[in-house]
Each structure stands twice: as C-alpha cells, then as structure tokens.
C-alpha cells in the first residue's frame, strides 16, 4: 500500500509539482537567507580570524566589538608584557582613515598597524610583494578586493575610462602623508566593506590624526604550557584591561551585531517569509491533495484499510514530498552560493543550516500531514455510499 501511496502522490502531477515547488522555494528562501545572514555575521569578526597567532586579544574594557576600537595608552603594552605567562605581546592599531587616491578621489579605508619588529598581524596570504617590504619607507599593503574595486585607478589618462586595480608602486595619501603600495594581500572580507590597508604600527600612528592614546588592541601569545583561562584572568586582574580568547572575542562581536542592530530581525523576517511560503503553498496544497483523495481513502477504509494503514500512506506521502522539496531547495541554495562571487555577497552555508531547513520543512509537512491525517481518521467509510 505504501507503493500505491507514492504512486498517488507522484501521479497527481499538478498538485505534486505545486507541493514540490512550494517546499523547494521555502527551503531555498530559508537556507539562502540564513546562509547570507551567517556569512554577514562571520564577516564581523573577520579580523580576529585573520590573526591566528594570537592566543588572547587584550582591549579596553569598554570595547563592544572588534571594530569598536577604544584606544589605550601605549604603556598598556608593557603592563601586559610584564604579566607572568605571557610569551609575547604585540601592539595592534586599527582605525578608519581617509585615503586620497592617485586620481584625486577620496576613500575611507580600514588601516591596520602591525608590530614593527615582528609584523605579527600582517596578512598571511600575500598575492604580490613580500610582507617584509612593509618595513620599507611609507610602505603599505592593500587587500585584493579593495584594490580591484574602491581603490581602482584609471587605466588611461581618461579619468572616466576603464579602470585597473591598484598595484604595487601606486602612491596614495593617508591624512596628507605619503603611502606607497608595496604588496597586495588576500584577506577575509570584512563586514564594513571598506578597503583594508596594512602597515606597521608606528607608521599607522603617523598616518592617523594626533592622539595621546594610539594602542587599539594587544595581541598576546601564552607561554608554552600556560593555561589560557588562568592567563586571561591574570591579565585582567593585573592590568585592568579586558582579555578574550579569539572565540570569546568573536562571540562578543557577533553578540553586539545580533543585539544592537536590526540585521537579525530583517533576516528573521525573510526566513519567516520562506517558512510561511512553505506553509501557504506546500502545506495548503498537500492538504488539498489529501482532500481530493479522501473518497479513495474512504473506499479503502470501507474495503478494510485500518486507520494505521491510511495514516502510514499519508505520512509517507508527506515525507516523500518533504525530502524531495528539501533536497531540491538545498541543491538550489548550493548552486546559488557557488554562482555568486564571495566578495559580492556574504554567503556561508554551514552544516547546521540544512538541518534547520530540514526542521522547518518537517514542521510544514508534519503540520499539513497532521491536518490531512485528522481528516482521514474522522473519515466515515459509509460516506462512500451514494445515499
């Protein structure tokens, strides 16, 4: 009878395709919007992932997220270095500055200043040039996306003509100070979507407007064998600063964006919409499909089908439609993800998202099936008689 149940489902092509399209579209909307949300949120802590050498990130206690730099006095670096269990501590400068481009245009840039001596914090994936070139006078690195887009320069003398990516040798100004591109690096896309410029800490301070406090964050490496949590608490106790593991710092940043912005609500609405589309189209259509077949279920009930057999048939029909719709929806989402360049759209399909979509589709299908089953259970077999 289960085979007949599937034949009934696949045989009613108009309704079957309707159910399938509804579930596919719902899965696509739910998964795709969730993946974009996850991708966007991941970008908020891209800098933390860019510097894997640091065991701990130390910052001003009032800092709310990684881009919310609250400059500290440079003496904080020495205080952290003096804490027992710290193998090394490096300064990190981070600030948004205005760059004057070779063509005269101006562009906001995220300037990262890394330790002059060790260059800890410099980009790991260098596309052109050498990281050591950062020690050259006025040297900066730019990242590929920014070089291709916001920092791109006219390829010819015509300022409105075609553009070329910013390249090694190009000169720009940061706060009226000369900066020479000595390298291009590949980095993770950031949430702010402004070009990132890397240079050394002291040169970055020189680029920035004068400020008594210039130290944005301190990167700490724990001594071998040092328990990280103990060290974290010790740094906080002895310096009065806040220290975070990369994971904690990422979560703190994520938490800020989740709670302080409308992003989750906006995406939540889109995801809810996907769910409602599933309920409205697929759920409704599946219910109608069962109603259309009610007289056949009634005839089967008269002929001796138990309620269990009929419920099994309806459940199988629901599961089959759900599994196919989910599969097609996830496939479509994956194709979407593959077709969109990563620097154009934040899209991160983590393994949990298909499970969430499967849960949503299950709710839709179980809801529609339950209503259908209720009809089948209440079905009075004598209704099949004409009288």
């Amino acid at each position, binding site marked *: *009878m289960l*085979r*007949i149940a599937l*034949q*009934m*489902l*696949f*045989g*009613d092509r108009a309704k079957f395709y309707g159910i399938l399209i509804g579930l596919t579209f719902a899965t696509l909307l739910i998964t795709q919007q969730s993946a974009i949300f996850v991708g966007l949120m991941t970008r908020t802590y891209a800098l933390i992932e860019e510097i894997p050498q640091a065991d701990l990130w130390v910052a001003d206690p009032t800092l709310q997220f990684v881009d919310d730099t609250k400059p500290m006095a440079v003496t904080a670096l020495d205080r952290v270095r003096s804490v027992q269990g710290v193998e090394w501590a490096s300064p990190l400068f981070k600030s948004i500055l205005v760059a004057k481009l070779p063509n005269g245009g101006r562009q906001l840039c995220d300037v990262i200043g890394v330790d002059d001596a060790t260059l800890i914090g410099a980009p790991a994936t260098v596309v052109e040039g050498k990281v050591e070139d950062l020690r050259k006078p006025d040297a900066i690195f730019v990242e590929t996306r920014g070089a291709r887009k916001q920092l791109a320069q006219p390829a010819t003398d015509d300022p409105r003509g075609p553009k070329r990516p910013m390249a090694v040798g190009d000169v720009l100004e940061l706060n009226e100070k000369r900066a020479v591109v000595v390298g291009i690096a590949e980095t993770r896309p950031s949430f702010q979507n402004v070009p990132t410029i890397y240079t050394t800490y002291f040169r970055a301070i020189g680029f920035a407007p004068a400020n008594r406090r210039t130290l944005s964050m301190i990167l700490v490496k724990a001594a071998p064998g040092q328990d990280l949590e103990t060290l974290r608490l010790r740094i906080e106790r002895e310096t009065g600063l806040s220290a975070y593991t990369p994971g904690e710092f990422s979560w703190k940043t994520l938490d800020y964006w989740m709670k302080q912005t409308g992003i989750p609500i906006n995406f939540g609405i889109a995801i809810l919409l996907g769910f409602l589309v599933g309920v409205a189209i697929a759920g409704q259509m599946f219910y109608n499909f069962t109603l259309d*077949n009610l*007289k*056949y279920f*009634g*005839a*089967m*009930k*008269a*002929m*001796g*089908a*138990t309620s269990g*057999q009929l419920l099994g048939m309806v459940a199988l029909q629901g599961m089959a439609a759900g599994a196919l719709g989910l599969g097609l929806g996830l496939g479509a989402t994956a194709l979407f993800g593959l077709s969109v360049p990563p620097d154009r759209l934040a899209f991160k399909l983590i393994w949990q998202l298909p499970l969430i979509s499967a849960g949503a589709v299950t709710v839709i299908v179980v809801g529609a099936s339950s209503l259908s089953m209720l009809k089948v259970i209440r079905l009075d*077999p*004598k209704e*099949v*008689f*004409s*009288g």
Partner: protein
Amino acid sequence: MTGSAAIHASAIAKTYGTGDAAVQALRGVDLQANFGEMVALVGPSGCGKTTLISILAGLLSRDGGELRLAGTDPDALDNNARTLWRREHVGFIFQQFNLVPQISVLENVAIPLLLRGDHRGTSLERAAQLLERVGLKGREASQPHKLSGGQQQRVAIARSLVHGPSILVCDEPTSALDGATGQRVMELVREQGCRPDRLVVLVTHDERIFHFADRIVHMDDGRVTRVVDAKSEVAALRAAQAMENPR
C-alpha cells in the same frame, strides 16, 4: 453453503441524532437472506436503504435488534476487528466506481489483497485473472480514466471479487451508466458475483435491473414493507408498462 443464512436480521433499528433532532432511519427491519442469492433493496430516497446496506456491510453500528452476517455479529467486534472482518468478508461495488486514478487498473483491482498484506506479485497475478474474467484482459496497465464508464465499473467488479468475499454489496452500480451498459454490468455481477457461497446485496432505483435479483426487498420509512420474488415483480412491472403504453 447455498440456502444457509448469510443475513439474519431481526428488528434492526437505527437513529441518527438525539432529542428533537433525532431521525429514525430504521424502525425494526427484519430480513433473511441466503448464500447464493441476489437481493435487491429498493424504495424511495430516505427510506433507509443506505443505512441498512451500511449496517449489512459492517460499516455502521445498529442501535437495536439482532444481526448475524455470515454467522458473525459485526457489532460484537471492536473497531479494528470489524475492519479486518470487513476486509475478509465484504466486497464493495460503488456507484461512482471509486477507482484510484493515479494507479493502474491492475493495481486498483489488487487493493483488497494488498490491504491484507498479500505478496504484491501474487496479488497482481490474482488481479489479472479477475480482469480477464470481467473481459478486460489487455487493459491491466491502463489508467482508470482512460476507460469508459462501463469498463470502469467492470474494474470495480473485479476489485470487489478479488479477495473472495462472502457478501458483495452493490450500491447503485448502474446509475452512472447508460441502460445498455448497465445491463451488461449487471450480467457480469450476476455471472461472476453470484456463487453458492456468496450473497449479493444490491441497492438500486433502476427497475430495469430488477430481473437480475432473486428477491426484491421493498423499503419505506425505515421498514421493510414487502419482500417479493423478482420474477413476479418484473412481470408485474412489465404488465403495468404495457397498460401505460399500449401498441
């Protein structure tokens, strides 16, 4: 089993609703029918035919009276046991055929066997035999909607007989068919359905098929008003028609 009681019904009563809204559908129906017979229940709309046939098919419980269907009182069984009893002992032919449109004719016929868990291959083989008996050999793979009304009812007849029921319930089997097709369908029901070990109960308004029955049970207002031999009923009807349309 010919001649032994397939139905023993005494003072069967059935009321729908309660209080002022109560409707007495059956008011003490007595009916005896034997295996090997075809009994036609006739009467005006609302006389209780459908209620009686539903009780005789084990689909509806009575409120009063005594009932034995092939030796069993279906109301003494719990819901599940009654469903299983029906599965084994009752075959149905419906007015609107009720063939599942998305599956083949062969699978439609096999449904009663598949419901009781018979092996699919064996069930389909048996269904093919029944289709051959009703003259539909070669149409096994067809979808029901590709057949004519008469052919669809023949599929329904094959379905009703495939599991060898002891009671065959036919609800207005010809009312969706034209006269000639209805006659052929009833010939088939008579030929294939009537067996010494089977009772055929027919509900109909169609006087043209009365002659297929052995006995005619007239009902009115929830009661059996008279039970007559079909031959004498048909003869009386023809005489009445001849009086109305003299040539």
